[in-house]
């Protein structure tokens, strides 16, 4: 059993995670990021279920979370296959690439202002290749600068 204060705080954390996931799934256009946001909503619900379960001293909530995990794994497997198929057809992970499937009376999503170019080039970590002799100074070849 957990105290009621911990219950309310855990419920608050669950609500925050759920709302963040909701905003993400509404706004983001990358299919995989939308999926991550759905998983974030599931996490919020799991926290809520476990909090109530611990508060009432009942195991039903935790059992339900075990099944949520199971269904999330199935859902991720199947849906990622669909995402891969969609990518193979359009070459994009864009949800708006499939707007031909929208309802008849809905307007078409047109990207009026796309961000101009890739102004921020990400710097990836790099390792210098091993086993390559550095170009050395011939005259100082016999000196060892360190051991």
């Amino acid at each position: 059993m957990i105290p009621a204060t911990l219950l309310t705080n855990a419920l608050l954390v669950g609500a925050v995670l759920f709302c963040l996931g909701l905003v993400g799934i509404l706004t983001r256009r990358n299919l995989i990021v939308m999926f991550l946001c759905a998983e974030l909503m599931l996490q919020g619900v799991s926290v809520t279920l476990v909090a109530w379960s611990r508060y009432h001293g009942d195991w039903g909530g935790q059992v339900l979370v075990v099944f949520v995990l199971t269904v999330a794994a199935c859902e991720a497997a199947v849906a990622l296959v669909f995402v891969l198929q969609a990518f193979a057809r359009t070459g994009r992970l864009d949800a708006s690439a499939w707007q031909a499937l929208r309802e008849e009376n809905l307007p078409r999503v047109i990207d009026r202002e796309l961000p101009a170019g890739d102004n921020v080039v990400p710097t990836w970590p790099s390792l210098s290749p091993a086993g390559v002799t550095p170009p050395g100074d011939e005259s100082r070849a016999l000196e060892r600068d360190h051991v």
Partner: protein
Amino acid sequence: MDPVTSPAVVPSGLLLAGSVAALAGALWLLLPKASDTVGSRRIGFLLGALALVGFAATGRTLGCVGEDAVFLTVAGIAVVSGLATIVTRSPVYSAIWFAMALAGVSGVLLVLGAQFLGVATIVVYAGAILVMFLFVLMLAQPSGMAPYDRVSNEPMLAAAAGAVLLGLLTLSIGRLSAAEPPACCRMPSRAQAAAGSTADTGGSSIAPAGVDGVKDDGDEVAHLGAELFGRHLFAVEVAGVLLLVALVGAIAVVSRGEATETDHRREGR
């Protein structure tokens, strides 16, 4: 000894409204948009920190967040990483932030006393599902940042809606704790009712003290397993069938997609 007995307060309206407004502004500024600048994102970070502090203060009036430093830390990790998951441009970074959020959620579950689920979240989610996401990202990610990762659908409306929903949820959670005095209205569990014991110990949350001394004796995993394979055995079987069907279905979709592609190629499309 225990802050349970202090009556919980409905969060003050001004604080809640300010937090909601700050969260909406932060989300709007941080979500990917075409007109993004470094300055607007900085303001977004500031507003987000403000909203975080505001909601933490709301939680303090709800209960007493500050007393449980471990809970505060892991909850902060979960919430901040969740925010970073939805606002990061690069999907790979998004997945990594989601892993951090999972670590935070796992910590929250551990603080709540659900050891098995805390570990299972890390093992199943971060170990299996997230790795699958990363594999798909590596298979399907075009080189460089795609333009659709740097714009989003209706960021202002969505941010406002999400923030207002969070405000309403917070309000209802506050009402709940104010309307339900914790000590007297606890629903007795089955085992507790069977034992006929209503002794309220209400000890620390990390080491669950237990109500009847039998149920919460630190053997949480064993009890969960007994419940899972006892009362819910049929559901476990159904879950196994579901996993099998998902596996077969995923393979079927993949192989059928490849078959149609080769058919198209054979037709000389």
